[in-house]
């Protein structure tokens, strides 16, 4: 699969077509759409909810912002270590970034050269996970200090914190809320496979989901795996956690990617979804749902697709380099991926 030169792309095939011009969602007909190059390894990416920008953070301590229609690139500086995680406010006006420097930073994404609006030293050690609430009022982060912290998105004030001792938390997520004025309950997945569910605003630990099958202990010293990422199905009935299992040699990276789902109401464990079509030593770094209910995942160089209720993938799209994060454009048809080789690529998941 070859990706077109972005310089040509912008003028010939702008990806921000109106929805009525877009193809139907059909991953089997996926084709490369755009390829933007950066000189440093990328770890995370997000598309803003208006579909104007794609942003990506990496090990050069910077965030790159590409204007999707033109391909023009702007660099956002403010972190002092690897940029690990990104999130947008629902209106797309604010970008929030979290890094190995323990900080989260708020950015006015639409400004010509975005500067940090707010810099919050949030965690001692790495900040690992960051999520923005559905109402845009709250940020939840977690870090190597084994704390999960809830923040006011507006002024950076800490509102609440929880401990995941003795385990390091890995990722955070807000649960969907039917009340648009409610930020949603808070979820955190840790490195040994626990998912904590705290209510908001009462901050009580309501329950824990057990996904410890996704965890391995290496030499009784280091955890390997855990909850790498989480997503809700479009109907909000299913919580899906992703990571790895079947680890045979962790230091060599011998493991298999997996997604595991829970019924959100009952907490009952559901189907495991794997990639059996192709044997890959891989972690499922992110899983996200298309509005149709198809689960999209990234593992090594592959973009994988699972039908709802299917154990194995129904299609794989191979890209030129290892993928560490992905996000769907709001048009629900273009998938953006952040790669080890420093590129951000987009893939059109369908054909006319």
């Amino acid at each position, binding site marked *: 699969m070859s990706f077109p030169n972005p310089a040509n792309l912008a003028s010939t095939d702008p990806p921000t077509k109106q929805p009525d011009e877009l193809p139907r969602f059909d991953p089997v007909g996926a084709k490369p759409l755009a390829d933007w190059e950066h000189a440093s*390894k990328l770890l995370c990416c997000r598309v803003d909810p208006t579909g104007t920008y794609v942003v990506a953070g990496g090990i050069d301590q910077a965030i790159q912002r590409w204007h999707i229609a033109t391909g023009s690139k702007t660099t956002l500086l403010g972190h002092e270590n*690897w940029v690990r995680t990104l999130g947008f406010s629902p209106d797309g006006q604010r970008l929030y970034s979290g890094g190995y420097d323990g900080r989260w930073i708020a950015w006015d994404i639409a400004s010509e050269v975005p500067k940090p609006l707010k810099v919050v030293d949030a965690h001692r050690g790495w900040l690992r996970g960051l999520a923005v609430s559905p109402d845009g009022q709250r940020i939840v982060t977690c870090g*190597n200090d084994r704390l999960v912290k809830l923040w006011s998105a507006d002024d950076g004030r800490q509102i609440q914190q929880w401990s995941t001792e003795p385990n390091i938390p890995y990722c955070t997520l807000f649960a969907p809320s039917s009340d648009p004025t409610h930020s949603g309950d808070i979820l955190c997945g840790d490195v040994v496979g626990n998912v904590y569910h705290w209510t908001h605003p009462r901050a009580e630990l309501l329950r824990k989901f057990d996904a410890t099958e996704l965890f391995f202990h*290496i030499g009784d010293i280091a955890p*390997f795996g855990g909850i790498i990422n989480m997503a809700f199905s479009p109907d909000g009935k299913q919580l899906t956690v992703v990571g790895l299992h079947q680890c045979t040699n962790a*230091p*060599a*990276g011998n493991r298999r990617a997996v997604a595991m789902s829970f019924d959100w109401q009952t907490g009952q464990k559901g189907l495991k979804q794997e990639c059996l079509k192709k044997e890959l030593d891989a972690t499922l770094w992110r899983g996200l749902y298309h509005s149709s209910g198809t689960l999209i995942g990234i593992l090594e160089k592959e973009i994988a697709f699972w039908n709802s209720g299917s154990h194995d993938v129904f299609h794989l799209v191979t890209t030129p380099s*290892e993928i560490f994060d992905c996000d769907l454009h709001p048009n629900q048809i273009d998938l953006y991926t952040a790669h080890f080789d420093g590129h951000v690529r987009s893939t059109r998941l369908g054909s006319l």
Partner: protein
Amino acid sequence: MSNPQYKPCGTVDHRIARRQFMGEFFTGLGVTGLGVTGLGVTAGTSLFSHPLGASQVAKAGKSVVVVYLNGGVSQFESWDPKSDLQTGGPFKSIATSVPGIHVSELIPHTAKQMHHMALIRSISTDLDDHALSNNIVRSGRTTRSATEYPELGAVVAKGLERADFPLPGHITTMLGGIGGRSNNAAYLGPRYASVAVGAEKGGIVNSQLPDGMSVQVDSRRHDWRRFVNSQHRSKVQSAEIDAYAQSYEQALRLMEKRDLFDISREPEAYQQAYGKTEFGKQMLLARRLVEQEVPFIEIQHGGWDFHHNNFEFHLHYVADFDRPFAHFIADLSQRGLLERTLVIVMTEFGRTPTINAGYGRDHYPKAWSIALAGSGIQHGAVIGSTDAKGVEVTERKVDHRHLFHTYLRAVGIDSSGEFEVAGRKFPIADPAFGPIEELLA
């Protein structure tokens, strides 16, 4: 760092007087340096470089402790951190107790002991295979055979040997397991090969007499064994038989010392301070063995071969190493043992500046580091350097052969000397190389 219950009677005078007595006692008996295979030191090439001569150094009761980080620890995430955005990784450097020396933020406790330590940041070897690199760093020779040259432990056990010493001179600690003797002494013979001693609560694994066997019966068994052995020995000359016989006697002496290996006898505060991890327990055991003046002790900390997920794994593995190791150095210092103990944090090679697609680092013998502490070295020294990306050695390139000479010289063994075994002379270390003189105290 302090041991709240430790009230040492550790004056220098006291220690010297005791060791002088012990050393003179053994020297007077004329048994220093004799082994069952007829080993000796070549006349005219003193084994010991100490100006007071061999017997004085033997009295010093020196020990070498190797902490072997098996698999290849990353120099970036330990002794030689870099701030380069593409190679340095996500960990920052921190200051140490020696102004101007910075190490990875992953070793904050060890950083506070840097005034007892030295770093060598310019090691360049040319093998990137685990087994082959293990051979060369342990033997100080460029060899592809694991049995061609004696390993450091065997050489030290021979070089610091004291007659009638009740314990093996070359011990590898292990928690659990049944132990056993390795084949790593080459021409020095099995007497100097490592003995893996499995420790558990109550002492050495399998060191109790079987149920129903009295001490008297056991003693008669051994008398019979000795008698039969001596009958056979009078007809057959064999170093191997002698080694077996010696092993039996050594095992018996070891059994009498089983309590030494029972770290549960240590005050709870000490056990807590070292940490109740496997590595913490081994470091505490190592301290007990240093107190007994065991010449060579090796502690293994395995699994550092992080081709994948290097940074996550180092986050946990280095933390597992840091506190027990730092406490070990502080404890030895507080007890007055560090001045006669050389501690080496050894590994077989470093890891690549390049971060691979699994966020791992691969094998890198071209520019890597080790740390030393204690006896015979300049404390607070840093030997050599690498470039800003950690790709090349830029100053004072050394390799395993220089290191081998340096270790030996640091504990008073003349590495330019020779061993004589059954009439053949063997250079103690590679004669084409020498120690890192500027590192030696």
